[in-house]
Structure formats: structure tokens, C-alpha cells
């Protein structure tokens, strides 16, 4: 894709995101659905920073997503009624956990790395599942709500005004995605692409591969935990399923579905996943079978994902 096409694609994405709450209703959706697309899209893009742009598959990103969610929820439930602070706490908790666990696993590769990320994810899952008195256990953590934003000069009621909450998410989403784009175009970002393309060559060009994979993992989990905090705030609730390895699998599915080699691919994948889930689950309880079938078809016929098809069309 040439520069002009790329700019047009970016403009189109932002236009859609900026106006989404206003036409969602007309096409059978609702604002909360738009919020879910943004939040899960951010999580899938965060995973893809590691998967698509560093070439490392994590099957345990729900752990950091979930730690973000619980960090935010527990801050609001037990500490202070402040939405911004809850986001900060969630992100800090998720990122610190990723920094520690990342340091232990960066020497592993391929399926071993994926397996160990699952294992660590399940550790956090069982902690939230069992520690009833603090996390609410299987029933989830209730008894809290996201709080209105006090900006000094004005107060924004993000609890009752769902459009206002959507735009709060969009602002954070834009900041996160902008940061990711900046990182990927930097010399540091190119070292990650180098590792994805040929780890041995990267190492023998003087790149300390483990250090760079660790950084990529931590950055990726930083964004995943931000998405997790927003997910909890969106639902005014969180439960252990936010950390379950099935959730990690969903993020991978979204990234692959949309196209993990393209920047916006995972967002498109998340949108398809969320809409499909929303629609099919009103028809049948077995909605996952249909999402799965769709996924298999995409992988079989369009291995580069939905955006991979579009890209080939514009290139030819």
C-alpha cells in the first residue's frame, strides 16, 4: 500500500470510530456494543504488538487484561471513588506483573513460550477464583461503579451518559494506538520487526534479542491492562473469566481474524468478533461454534486475515 492509500485508510478508521455512537443504533447496535469493540480492539492490538510485530505468540494476555480489570475494580470498591485513579492502578498492576513474569520467560520460544504464558495466566485466574473475600470469587466483584469525571471546570457523568463514556474510551484508545504507531516506526520498533523476520540475523546484528522481546512483552501487556481497566469500567463489574485462558484465545482469534500483519487488523477482527457474538448469541446459545466456524473459514481461505484481502486488492 502506498502512502496515500495508508492515509486514506487511517482517515476512514478514525471517521468510523468518531461517529460510531451516532449510527450504531440505525444498524441494530447500541453504544455499549461500540464501547466493547473499542476496548477489545485495543486488547487485540496490544496483543498484536507482540504477536504481529515481534513474532512472539502469547496465549496468556488475558492475565494482564484481567489484572487491569481487577486493579481498577478493587481500587473503586476498596480505596477511592476515582475513575482516573482506578485506571492508573489497574495499568500499573498489570504492567508490573508482566515485567516480572516476562523476565522469567523471555528465553523460551514458540510453543513453549505460549504454554508458559497460559500457565501464568491460569495462576492469576485461580487466585481471583478462590480468594472469595477480596475478589468476590466466581460471582465476580460487584458493589462499585465507575465514577463521574471531575475535570475541575466541569464534571462529566460517564456513568449515565453512555456516549460520554464512549468518547472517554476513544480518547484513551487514540492515545494508546498513537503511541503504538510511534513505537513501531522508531528504530526500536524496527528491531522488533527484525526479530520477527529472523531472530538469528537480529542477534548477529548486535540486537540483544531477549531484552527487546522483554520490552515488547511489557509494552504489549501495558496496553492490554489498559484495555482491561476499561473493560471493568464498561461493565461496572469484573469476574475471573476476564483472566481465563479462553479470553486469551479470543484475543489471538481477533488478531488473526483481522490480520496480524496489519496495524488495524486486530481492531477489525475484534469488531467482527464482538458483532458476531452479539448477534448470534441472541439466536443460539452455541454462538461460539459459529464464531469458530467463521474463524476456520477465514484462516483457510485468507491466511492473512480480513485486512490481508483488502491489502492484496489495493496492491494489485
Amino acid at each position, binding site marked *: 500500500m502506498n502512502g496515500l492509500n495508508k492515509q486514506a485508510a487511517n482517515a476512514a478508521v478514525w471517521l468510523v470510530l468518531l461517529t460510531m455512537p451516532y449510527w450504531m443504533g440505525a444498524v441494530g447496535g447500541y453504544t455499549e456494543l461500540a464501547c466493547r469493540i473499542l476496548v477489545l480492539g485495543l486488547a487485540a492490538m496490544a496483543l498484536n504488538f507482540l504477536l504481529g510485530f515481534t513474532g512472539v505468540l502469547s496465549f496468556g494476555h488475558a492475565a494482564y487484561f484481567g489484572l487491569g480489570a481487577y486493579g481498577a475494580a478493587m481500587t473503586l470498591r476498596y480505596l477511592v471513588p476515582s475513575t482516573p485513579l482506578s485506571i492508573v492502578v489497574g495499568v500499573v498492576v498489570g504492567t508490573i506483573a508482566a515485567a516480572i513474569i516476562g523476565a522469567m520467560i523471555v528465553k523460551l520460544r514458540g510453543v513453549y513460550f505460549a504454554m508458559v504464558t497460559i500457565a501464568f495466566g491460569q495462576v492469576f485466574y485461580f487466585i481471583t477464583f478462590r480468594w472469595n473475600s477480596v475478589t468476590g470469587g466466581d460471582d465476580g466483584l460487584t458493589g462499585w461503579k465507575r465514577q463521574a469525571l471531575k475535570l475541575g471546570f466541569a464534571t462529566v457523568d460517564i456513568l449515565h451518559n453512555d456516549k460520554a463514556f464512549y468518547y472517554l474510551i476513544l480518547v484513551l484508545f487514540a492515545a494508546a494506538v498513537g503511541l503504538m504507531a510511534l*513505537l513501531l516506526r522508531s528504530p*526500536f*520498533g524496527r528491531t522488533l520487526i*527484525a526479530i520477527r523476520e529472523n531472530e*538469528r540475523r537480529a542477534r*548477529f*546484528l*548486535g540486537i540483544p534479542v531477549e531484552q527487546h522481546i522483554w520490552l515488547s512483552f511489557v509494552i504489549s501487556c501495558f496496553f492490554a491492562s489498559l484495555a482491561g481497566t476499561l473493560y471493568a469500567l464498561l461493565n461496572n463489574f469484573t469476574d475471573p473469566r476476564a483472566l481465563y485462558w479462553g479470553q486469551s484465545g479470543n484475543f489471538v482469534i481477533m488478531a488473526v481474524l483481522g490480520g496480524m500483519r496489519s496495524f488495524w487488523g486486530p481492531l477489525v477482527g475484534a469488531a467482527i468478533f464482538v458483532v458476531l457474538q452479539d448477534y448470534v448469541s441472541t439466536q443460539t446459545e452455541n454462538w461460539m461454534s459459529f464464531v469458530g466456524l467463521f474463524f476456520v473459514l477465514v484462516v483457510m481461505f485468507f491466511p492473512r486475515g480480513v485486512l490481508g484481502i483488502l491489502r492484496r486488492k489495493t496492491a494489485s
Partner: protein
Amino acid sequence: MSLLRVENASRHFGSLIAVNGVSLTVEPGELRAVIGPNGAGKTTFFNLISGFFPPTSGRIIFDGKDVTQLPAHKRVAMGMARTFQITEIFPELTVRENLRIPVEVSAGLRLVPWRSRRAEGEVTRRVAELLDMGGLADKADRLVGELPHGDQRATEIMMSLALKPRLLLLDEPTAGMGDQETYDVTRLIRRLHKEQKLTIVLIEHDMRVIFNLADRIMVLAEGAILAEGTPDEIGKDEHVQAAYLGKAA
């Protein structure tokens, strides 16, 4: 002071002794060839020098410092670059991008998380220089994976050169090439050696290439040094002829 000194290096893989007590001294500005039959331990020897894995015993001294236990990327930072027997490049990136990455790493930019306009000018200039030197300027925006083998090899050598090495290790640079490509790559190596005064150690199978290029030759057989000397001396050596032509000689 010699640039590289390998002292009595050995490497065992279980009961197999791939390299057995090999010593080598390379002076600055020298072009040294390492030859030997298949399975002689040449590539294993290169892997010990470049830090792919550490030796079982022995020492590697580079530029006066003991680097025996140093990881590969730190040896690269000290000025040791290498290519591989099977070309190792970034096939899905363009030639320009392939060169840009080592240029940025060698400029100390690998952890810079934003675009720096100032650094970018310098990087672009250096990449253009390398493209010219490798004869790749007209293919700069092609994907490397789509180029012929000779151009891929030239890209790999240029990537190593982008690191501003003081020692360049080339593992069979003309392997699998036709006559024209072999000639082009040989000429490129000779230019790097003569014009840039680069110290080079190369493994090679093609005798024409070696006798054309090398100042001195080391012959390995079954993991140990069989002979060492100038191309003339090696050409006349009975042991070498025996190793290449069969035990009967």
C-alpha cells in the same frame, strides 16, 4: 597486536569432537581463509569465534580482550560481524530496510522509541552509501526475498558492513552461486579488503576464490589443524592433497 587470537579452542557435542584444540592468530588487515572437507568443523569453529555457542575449552581473544564467555551481540558491538552459510536476511523487508536496521543499531539507536529527524538524515545517507558499495542501489526498494541469490548474499555482506566491523567473518560467501555471481561476490570481498583495509576470515569451498583472495590459509580436517601457510605452500602440501583427494595419495 593481533586482532583475533583463538587459543586451543575445542567444542564437543556429546561424544562428537567437532573442533579439537584449534589455534588461530589473525593480524589487522589480513584476509585469512579456512578450508577443509565437509564435516571438518569449519562452521563450528566460526560459531565459537562469533559467540553462537561457547567453546568446551580454550579461549577467544578479540582486540586484546577475552571474549570467550561474551554473548554474540556484545561481540558484534566490539566490532565482530558475520554472515552465514545459508544466507540470513530479512526476506520480507526491502533491501533498504535490511540495511537500515544494522545502520541504526550501530549508531546506538536500537532503544530509541521515536523518530528522530536528526538521526534519520545520517542513517539515510549511510544506507545510500552501502547500497552503492554493494551494487544494490537500483534494487533498494525490492523485497530481498524476491532477489536472486547473488544479490541476497551482497545484501547480507552489506548488512554486516553496516555494523562498521573491524573483523568480518564470512561463512562460504559463494556457496550455491553460478560463475558470474561468484565473480561479483569475490570482487566485492577483494574491494572491502583492499579499499577498506578490512580484516576478513572466510570459509570457502571454491579453490579459485581462495587462491585469488587469501593472504594465508588454514586447513581443517576432522576438527583439527592439518596445515597452515600461504596459498603457495598449501597448494604443495601433501597432507592437504591427501585430505582432498583421498587417503590413497
